[in-house]
């Protein structure tokens, strides 16, 4: 019932047989129903293994970990913060982002008020004004830009005191976010009322702000 190929079937299945052996085994499989059946079973075992579900613990393991690493809800990072956030600027930036979100909500609601949806259809259809992201003269936009510039200055000033890997990771992420912002802005020029793009741009700008804030906290005291 067994033959010399039976012990090679897993290697065959995993693509690890040398070419010549592979060809010989394939020829053998055409005539050996036992090996063919076994190969099918082994393939099912592999498929089954790859489809197993993930387990989760019955209790939250984090408190035990937090206790062992010395983390408490009030625990401060080990590196002291040299920089305190420019709250007025961050507040203004937050308002700017909220404005964007508000614009999105308005757009969503406006979209819901479709002229074809019964009684509301008699109401005048709202004009879908583009959200003025980064529009010149928009004071909230200017505040956002100022907050970003301020954080970037802090980061640039502390760059020499950060680990090079840290700087690389931060710069890679900032570059990715900047690309995302530029692409979203470009897309919005073609489709100013697009809900996805407006939401996406607001979230991406928020992400940049968050990343810069986090990165600024990494700068050690000089």
């Amino acid at each position: 019932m067994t033959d010399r190929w039976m012990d090679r079937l897993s290697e065959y299945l995993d693509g690890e047989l040398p070419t010549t052996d592979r060809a010989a085994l394939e020829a053998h499989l055409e005539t050996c129903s036992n090996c063919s059946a076994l190969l099918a079973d082994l393939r099912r075992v592999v498929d089954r293994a790859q489809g197993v579900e993930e387990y989760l613990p019955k209790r939250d393991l984090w408190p035990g970990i937090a206790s062992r690493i010395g983390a408490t809800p009030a625990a401060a990072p080990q590196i002291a913060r040299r920089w305190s956030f420019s709250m007025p600027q961050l507040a203004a930036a937050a308002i700017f982002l909220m404005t964007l979100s508000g614009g999105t909500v308005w757009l969503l609601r406006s979209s819901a008020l479709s002229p074809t949806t019964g009684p509301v259809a008699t109401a005048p259809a709202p004009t879908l004004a583009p959200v003025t992201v980064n529009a010149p003269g928009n004071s909230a936009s200017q505040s956002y830009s100022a907050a970003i510039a301020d954080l970037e200055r802090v980061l640039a000033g502390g760059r020499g005191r950060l680990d090079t890997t840290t700087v690389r990771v931060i710069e890679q992420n900032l570059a990715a976010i900047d690309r995302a912002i530029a692409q979203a802005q470009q897309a919005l020029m073609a489709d100013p009322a697009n809900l996805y793009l407006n939401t996406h741009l607001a979230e991406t700008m928020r992400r940049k702000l968050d990343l810069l804030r986090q990165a600024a906290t990494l700068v050690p005291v000089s």
Partner: protein
Amino acid sequence: MTELGLGVVTLAYEQTGRPDSDAVDATLAASGDASAFERLYRHHLPRVYSLVRRMLNDEDADEVTQDVFVRAWQKLGTFRGEAAFGTWLHRLAVNVILARRETLGTRRKRYLEGDAVLETLPTRRPGPELAMDFESAMERLPDGAKEVFVLHDVEGYRHEEIAEMLGLATGTSKSQLHRARLALRRHLER
């Protein structure tokens, strides 16, 4: 417009993709930010816990999983971002699990040769009352075959990596895997 569309897809990935977030969180955690480390923990817990449970047992899974994350916290300074954080963490988890195995002192004979692996599992008989599900059958494999099977077929490691982790010859890893598969095929759900 096509380029624009592709760009938007890229944006969505860059914004939500975990690898980016993991790298930032790992950097923050390495500087002592426990909340960033908790985010990493929450995201990677299912895979780490599943690995621990399958390679050890249900009884020790909670404690060893905590050991893995405590160890990760201690070793974060060695994470250089050359591989994904998840890859680094997973490899560290395997090391912690193997070290724990050594201290448990209750291990079964590890690398059984030939048909001995097959004999560790009772033959599945017809009837639900005697049926052993696939997970249970996996648990019943001898430790050596189970380690290789879980690492290769469940976790996707290559034989060369497994051989290095477990201190085996690559050929031993392959033969243990084949024996484990032969044993488990009798416990496939029909």
